Every structure is written in structure tokens, then in C-alpha cells.
């Protein structure tokens, strides 16, 4: 009897440890939904576009969200704006120089002030943001939504097990500080670039 109780307790403990284990979420989305959005004011209308080449991994544990770590990488050449000529200028050496600086990176250093309500964790992410080869530490208010067992439903294969992690955040950078036309064309194109992200990472279970 004693042995049986011990086995049950041990099994329950192992199960809870397994559930609370940090999980690595891959942000290369099989459905191609992931993108960052950016916008900045300019003379005639705001320049708004997206960058869909999102990759990277974030390790998240719903039981310990403060321990979240990882890196999101954006392919700079995936930047798209609706006007083709403007798109050419954007990726050219004059602006982002994507040939020399092919990646835009956010590397999470720490997650502070994490509070969880239901499956949503709000926190401030401190990380190293690299744009056009310049790296600066920034703070981004983020929301992490943990969707347990939602992977299969999303890919229309309910039999496939796995979790999803959605990261939402918004921040502003000064383009001049990242070597993007510093001090130039400020009367035509605003220096502040608003960047927002809503991306999903997948962690299929074998």
C-alpha cells in the first residue's frame, strides 16, 4: 500500500515537473502569418509596411515566465511597403542596406515585472535590438499568450499535439540612432519608427 502511494506521489510530481518544464517555441511560422509591422510619418502619408521573414526561438515556461529567454530574427530583405519604388529605396544602401545588414534582431536579456492573468503574461522585456548593424538595449512592454494544445488545431491536424506562444509588443526607435540617414530628410520622413509585433511560436510535441 505504502509503495502504491509513493508511486502515485512520484508520478504526480513527475507530471507537474513535465508540465512546468520550459518549452522552446519556434517562431518560423508554418502558416506564414508572422510579421513585424512598422510605420513612420512622412510628408504625404505615413510609410507603413511589414517584414515577414521571422525566425528564432523563445523558451517559455508558464510556471516561471520571468525565466523566458530567446531571440527573434527578422530577415531585413523581407521588408515590404506597398509602393515598389519606395521599397527599393528602403532596402538600398542609403536606408537599411540589407545586403550588408541582412538581419534585424531582438535578443531577450530579461523579462521583468511578469504578471499572469489566465493564459496571458504581461511584462517588460529588456533586450538587445540590432538594426542596420547597430545594437542598443531597449525595453519593450510585451504580452505573452500561452495557448496549450492549440498547435494541432491551428494547422488543421487536431491529432498533432503541441502548444503555441503568441508574443505581442510595440516600441519606438529613432532611425538616426541606428545609422539610418541620421540628421537627414527629417523634414520629409520622421525620425521615429513605430514597430509592433504580433507573432506566434510553435512547440509541437512528438
Amino acid at each position, binding site marked *: 500500500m505504502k509503495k502504491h502511494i509513493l508511486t502515485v506521489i512520484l508520478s504526480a510530481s513527475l507530471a507537474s515537473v513535465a508540465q512546468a518544464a520550459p518549452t522552446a517555441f519556434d517562431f518560423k511560422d508554418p502558416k506564414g502569418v508572422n510579421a513585424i509591422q512598422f510605420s513612420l510619418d512622412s510628408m504625404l502619408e505615413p510609410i507603413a509596411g511589414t517584414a515577414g521573414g521571422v525566425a528564432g526561438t523563445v523558451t517559455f515556461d508558464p510556471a516561471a515566465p520571468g525565466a523566458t529567454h530567446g531571440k527573434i530574427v527578422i530577415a531585413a530583405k523581407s521588408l515590404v511597403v506597398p509602393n515598389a519604388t*519606395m521599397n527599393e529605396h528602403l532596402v538600398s544602401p542609403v536606408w537599411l542596406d540589407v545586403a550588408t545588414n541582412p538581419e534585424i534582431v531582438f535578443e531577450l536579456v530579461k523579462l521583468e515585472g511578469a504578471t499572469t492573468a489566465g493564459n496571458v503574461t504581461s511584462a517588460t522585456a529588456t533586450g538587445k535590438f540590432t538594426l542596420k548593424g547597430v545594437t542598443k538595449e531597449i525595453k519593450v512592454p510585451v504580452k505573452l499568450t500561452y495557448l496549450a494544445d492549440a498547435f494541432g488545431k*491551428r494547422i488543421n491536424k487536431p491529432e498533432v499535439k503541441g502548444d503555441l506562444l*503568441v508574443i505581442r509588443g510595440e516600441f519606438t526607435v529613432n532611425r538616426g540612432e541606428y545609422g539610418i540617414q541620421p540628421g537627414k530628410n527629417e523634414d520629409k520622413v520622421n525620425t521615429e519608427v513605430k514597430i509592433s509585433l*504580433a507573432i506566434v511560436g510553435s512547440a509541437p510535441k512528438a
Partner: protein
Amino acid sequence: MPPLKRLLLVSVLAVLAATASYWAAKGAHTGWSQNRVPVSKTDEVTGIVFTAYEDRFVPGIEVLGAGGLAATCLLVAAIFVRSKKLSSPNS
């Protein structure tokens, strides 16, 4: 009025009307022309609102500007087309 001048003035009106009609019919977009049009979509499971692009051309104000410039050139040409001088009865 000389026939050439009349033709040029009619062309001015035609260019202006055609440009404005084309621009209006394609959405009357008051920004720059778009080679691809952003469309918002929502991922059902995650609730993520993302941007997809439709490959179609939407003329912007530079198309209107080009039409206006062409009409102005035609108008200037029309102004410089001389009317035939009436011959003086004393000459």
C-alpha cells in the same frame, strides 16, 4: 479658332477627365501609388491580425499630377498656336 488650337484644348479636357476618372475608379487613393495593396486578415486560433498583400496597382496622387502636367503642356501648346491674321483691306 484654328483647328489645331481647338484640338489641343479638347485634348486638355480629355486628358484631365481621363486621368481623374481612372484615379477615381481605382479607389481615389490620396497617397502614393501602390503596387501591392495591404489587406488585414485575422488568424483564427491566435487572434493575430496580420497584413497580406494583393498584387494590384492603385494609382496615387502622382498619377493625378502626371495627368495635370500633361494637360498643362497641351494648354501651353494651345496658347502658342497662333490665330490666322486677318488681312487688312488697305494692304
